[in-house]
């Protein structure tokens, strides 16, 4: 994956909204989260929305993305980005407000603000990175961990009789009437990266159109906590993650009703 990221930078250039990481790169080798920030930077530039964008970031690995994007940003207590985004969007309706948060941060501790924002049909965009573990804290089970997946809190593998089944965020969110857009993308190869980029762009456009809440889930590799090489992680995404979490758009409407 490292190779492909370099290739992209050579071909497409570096988005101006990405802050150069002069003090060294903070993410683990093969991590996909920086790619999700790159997509956001590319799309904001293309839409010329960098001056109007406000990013709301959760506690977790993605909190470091906050420093990488050259836009106004807010760091929230764990799980609370949809609450912050709600208030910021209501107070400054002319801005583009999006959250970036992990699977645990949105679906576990953050289920209350997520459900609140979905119910109120907030005109915000929620971006969730799904890497099937808690990354920052060392690889514990997340709501999205696969059946049988070994994590530090499921050393024998996720047992469905004890811990149930993976949560399908994009499908679940698509069922809410206040949602205008819900999709799941991945960045494990250039084709999926481009598709995911379109999803993010569509999601932002829904907010600009004041259509309703928009959501994009992005399947991400976490080689460190999966205990795999970056290359094996790509294979695992292809074979296991995408089998459980199919890519695509689950809702796309012009306006909610």
């Amino acid at each position, binding site marked *: 994956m490292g190779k492909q990221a370099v290739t992209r930078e050579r071909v497409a250039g570096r988005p101006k909204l990405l802050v150069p990481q002069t003090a060294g790169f903070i993410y683990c080798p093969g991590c996909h989260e920086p790619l999700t920030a790159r997509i956001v930077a590319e799309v904001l530039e293309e839409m010329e929305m960098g001056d109007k964008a406000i990013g709301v970031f959760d506690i977790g690995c993605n909190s470091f993305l906050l420093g990488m994007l050259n836009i*106004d940003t*807010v760091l929230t207590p764990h799980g*609370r980005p949809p*609450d912050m985004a709600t208030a910021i969007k209501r*107070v*400054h309706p002319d801005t583009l407000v999006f959250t970036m948060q992990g699977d645990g941060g949105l679906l576990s501790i953050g289920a209350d603000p997520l459900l609140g924002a979905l*119910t109120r049909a907030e005109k915000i965009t929620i971006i969730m990175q799904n890497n099937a573990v808690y990354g920052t804290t060392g690889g514990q089970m997340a709501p999205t961990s696969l059946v049988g997946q070994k994590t530090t809190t499921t050393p024998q593998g996720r047992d469905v009789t004890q811990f149930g089944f993976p949560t399908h965020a994009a499908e679940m969110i698509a069922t809410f009437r206040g949602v205008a857009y819900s999709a799941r993308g991945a960045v494990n190869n250039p084709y999926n990266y481009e598709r995911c980029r379109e999803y993010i762009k569509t999601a932002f456009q829904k907010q600009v159109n004041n259509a309703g809440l928009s959501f994009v889930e992005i399947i991400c590799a976490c080689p460190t906590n999966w205990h795999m090489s970056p290359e094996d992680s790509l294979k695992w995404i292809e074979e296991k993650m995408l089998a459980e979490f199919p890519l695509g758009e689950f809702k796309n409407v012009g306006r909610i009703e």
Partner: protein
Amino acid sequence: MGERMFIEGNVAIGWGAVSAGCQAFFGYPITPQNEITEWFAREFPKMGRVFVQSQSELGSINMLYGAAAAGVRAMTSTSSPGWSLMQETMSDMANAELPCVIVNVQRGGPGGGPIRHAQQDYIQCTRGGGHGDYRNIVLAPASAQECCDLVQLAFYLADKYRNPVVVLSDAIIGRLRETIEVEKSEFGPLPDKDWAVRGKGKHKDGRRRIVEHSGDLFGRYPSYRALLQRLDQKIKQMQESELRYEAYRIEDVSIVLVAYGYTARVAKEAVNMARAEGIKAGLIRLITAWPFPHKIIRDKAYHGCKFLVVEDSLGQVVEDVRCAVEGRAEVQLVSILDRHIPTDGGMILPDKVFGRIKEINKGEIGVCHG
């Protein structure tokens, strides 16, 4: 002359917030503060201001974080269990240095407790409430008029110190209907909120703004120690400059009552009853529950005064008074156990307090053997 209204304390909080230029309110139903949330739901949309009924008190406080980060005056209100729920974010806002106002209309506890009046959140409010080292200024209204006035002061102090400010009311003050005058208070100029997020294009320098609650991770402070030094400095400045209390008949006093909120009204009545019989009683009424008036209490203790704390709890303010007298005076307490009836409708009444004043005056209890 402001507009005169006959309203309850909870509603007076709304008019105070409007006068202060509050732009956003976030609330969740909980008794006995529902009148506040309902008032904002009714009035704010008419004024083109933001009202959101949140999905929980966690939602309210985190929306408040968002609105404060976005640079507008905003508030929430709740009652004791909801106040407990809010504490993680209170701590985060103290770190992030976000100005905002939180109203706690206290009810009984611990736990679910009764939904009626009590004053059991004093320690939780005056010690910050959440994890880590920080303090909030805590303003304690004792009338509907003060609900209106202190909310305005709260917004000013929040902006002045870039720190959350708590208005600590209770169910009796909240539901007490009195004639008040709604007048906009002027406190002086404040610096621009240049640090707030509005979208990069809105900033004069065109540079991004980051609002975060780590302190040193994104360069707001050069180190963790630098953050702590700033918070320490802020705490000391607030203690030095923002102490407020009402000294009632304490010039020639020998028995000093200490109270806040509804029990301060009760204590004042008891002082008047005592004075009518020639007993030199007086009252120090806390207007700021934090900062606390240590110095005046210490001075009175060193001059031989005796102390009687009146509070509708098992004894929380009394701990601060005992600390302030530095062992020089005996400190008595009229507590929640002294209510006139044992049910949750019981109240501390002036007769009870007056009786204790008379006992102390006769030297039957509270004799100082120092």
